[in-house]
């Protein structure tokens, strides 16, 4: 009679299971560790043993390639050289580049791969997302920008000064020949025609606008990824800890957030630039250091409302530790609102960078804002220098907003039900 009994609840060896849990990292974490640890080591090696590297310009960097042997050898031996090549980074990565690659890898393993691992949910979200057509177009635009920013700089040369080629109009555009340094295209009736050599024209100094935009996409991408990553890490941990600690710890942490939020960030940045000079790294640090306040507040309120839910009580009653409750139940349930908030936060950083670059206070990198600043004086006869990067920036920010809106709808079934009701009413 008694042949095979199903496993009984009280037969399960919980101790064994608990032990297993500790060793069993998810494949995502394993992959992330395998790829990120070497990069961190490379960065440390770079920082410790190869000095004075940052002062080298791009040209010098390639000349000094032999000298910088240790870096590439090290990268090659640990097998991440391909990454740097693939992501459009030179052999001479700056600290920002290291951070960028790390955040990119985290993004791939914890967002893209997770979507891949859960095809059913991905399909569902995609179905919801697709309802918003502008958002789909926006996503395509952001995708193009990401690809251009990642691999573009490798295929498209950095815009170089060439005074003879100053103020070339874009293709299918013409300007008074008196304004172009030497017209590369045909001159018809005193008007200089644009050529395909510079599809989007050139600046006063003859720098290629298209090249500027492509290299600017990389800068924007780096800012978007790194700052957002840092802000999310800071904001989420601060917010959840505050919500979970409660009492005076919570009060203290939130008052601290108040102070951070009250700092006039732009003025502070101007001050720091004025005292210490500016670089992309400094920029990112300041943005992250003063940008997390809103996220922390938001996450805290979300975490508070989630921890009131019944299932959290159930988790607690079944003996889960606080750490586990927070990491496995509270955080995932606040994730959807955090993602929505990020899509609205990220464009803010891009605008901020562009503003500072426009004031000539940004880092010395080819960013879109800098291009707008370059073209402002010549706007009367050469409006493309300002318009091209301005429109790209505008479209990017618009795209972020549309995508954010669509994600909000996709992740929030209540809002969707409301929309359906309204459509039914109409």
């Amino acid at each position, binding site marked *: 009679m008694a042949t095979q009994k199903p496993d009984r609840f009280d037969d399960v060896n919980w101790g064994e299971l608990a032990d297993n849990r500790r060793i069993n990292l998810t494949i995502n974490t394993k992959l992330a560790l395998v790829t990120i640890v070497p990069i961190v080591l490379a960065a440390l090696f770079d920082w410790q043993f190869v000095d004075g590297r940052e002062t080298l310009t791009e040209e010098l960097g390639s000349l000094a390639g032999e000298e910088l042997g240790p870096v590439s050898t090290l990268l090659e031996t640990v097998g991440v050289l391909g990454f740097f090549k693939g992501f459009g980074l030179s052999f001479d990565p700056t600290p920002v580049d290291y951070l960028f690659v790390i955040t990119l890898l985290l993004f791939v393993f914890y967002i893209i791969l997770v979507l891949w691992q859960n095809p059913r949910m991905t399909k569902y979200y995609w179905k919801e997302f697709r309802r918003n057509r502008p958002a789909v177009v926006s996503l395509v635009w952001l995708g193009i920008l990401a690809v251009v920013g990642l691999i573009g700089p490798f295929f498209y040369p950095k815009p170089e000064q060439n005074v003879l080629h100053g103020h070339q109009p874009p293709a299918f555009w013409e300007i008074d020949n008196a304004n172009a340094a030497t017209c590369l295209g045909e001159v018809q009736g005193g008007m200089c025609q644009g050529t395909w050599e510079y599809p989007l024209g050139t600046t006063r100094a003859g720098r290629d606008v298209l090249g500027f935009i492509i290299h600017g996409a990389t800068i924007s991408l780096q800012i978007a990824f790194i700052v957002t990553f840092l802000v999310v890490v800071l904001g989420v941990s601060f917010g959840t800890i505050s919500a979970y600690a409660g009492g005076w710890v919570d009060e203290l942490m939130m*008052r601290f957030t*108040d*102070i951070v*939020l*009250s*700092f*006039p*960030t*732009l*003025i*502070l940045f*101007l*001050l*720091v*630039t*004025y*005292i*210490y000079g500016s670089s992309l790294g400094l920029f990112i640090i300041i943005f992250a250091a003063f940008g997390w306040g809103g996220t922390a507040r938001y996450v805290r309120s979300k975490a508070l409302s989630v921890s009131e839910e019944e299932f959290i009580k159930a988790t607690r009653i079944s003996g889960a530790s606080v750490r586990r409750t927070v990491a496995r139940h509270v955080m995932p349930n606040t994730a959807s609102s955090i993602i929505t908030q990020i899509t609205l936060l990220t*464009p803010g950083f891009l*605008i*901020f960078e*562009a*503003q500072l670059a*426009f*004031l000539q*206070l940004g880092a010395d990198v080819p960013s879109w804002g800098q291009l*707008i600043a370059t073209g*402002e004086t010549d*706007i*009367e006869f050469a*409006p493309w220098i*300002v*318009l091209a990067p*301005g429109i790209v*920036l*505008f*479209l990017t*920010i*618009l795209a*972020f*907003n*549309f995508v954010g809106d669509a994600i909000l709808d996709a992740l929030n079934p209540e809002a969707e039900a*409301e*929309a359906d009701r*309204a*459509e039914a009413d*109409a």
Partner: protein
Amino acid sequence: MGLSRYVLGRVAWAGIVSLVIVTATFLLLSFAPNPNIQEAATQAALEGNDPAEAVERERELRGLDEPLYVRYVDFLNGVYTFDWGWSNSRAQPVTEALLESLYYTAQYSVPWTILTVLLGPLVGIYSAANMYNWRDHAATGFSFAGYAMPNFFFAIVISLVFAVWLDLIPVTYKTGVDVFSLQNLRQLAAPIFVLVTGSIAGTMRVARNESAEYINSDFMKTAKAKGVSPLRAYLYHVTRPTMVPLSTTLVGQLLALFLGASLLIEVIFGIPGIGKTTFDAIIAQDTNLVLGATLVFTFIAVVGNLLEDLVFTILDPRISFDDR
């Protein structure tokens, strides 16, 4: 008892926040190399004197040889007695320079704030009343476009089109104009327009989403059933509860724009307001003026946040002060 105690608490907190920020600014500046001292050293070296001695003299002259805490107390005294020092680049006391700039800043920021506060909720509620038809989509599209358009880029385009190509507005800002004159309106129209389009978008979006909740609520059904006119129903029954959550975002958004965009708007349109003064002071390395401007911005941010919380509690009688 609740309200006054709450207000007192908030004011005290605002004081603490500004103190912390002022201290941070002070520390930042005191650990930075002072350009005046370097200048003195260079000067002495050029004249064949001992640079070290000149540095010492300059430090003494500026009171920098005192220990840090003495200077800090002095600095705090100066801050709270409005003795903010002398601006080298403008050759006038810092407070005077800042007041002068605030006069120009107020000329465009007061109409801008009023327009945003009035138009934002109105368009938002209008959009919610017409939810999901073309009017709503048009308003939403406008809101997204206004929000996504970087203010400084928009300002450049506007001045290109209207000042350079169409010649409708003056290219340069004139300072000697009467505040309430047509000429002043013409030269301030562009900056106000740019700022309003930027700030109205977010406000309107929040107003739309918040008021959507109330439009189908029971009390609106009751109001309609009793024959209340749609205008009164929307203005009185929907606007009031919408303003409560809106007030928390409104001030924050206005402040963020004020602290960020106004500086660029002033630089682009050449308005000699507080933003441009700050920017010029930084370029000219005028430490006292930079510090003073930072204080003004901090003060505005702190007072703005304070007002936000007060408005929130006054608008919503359900919030009890004792809980906060």
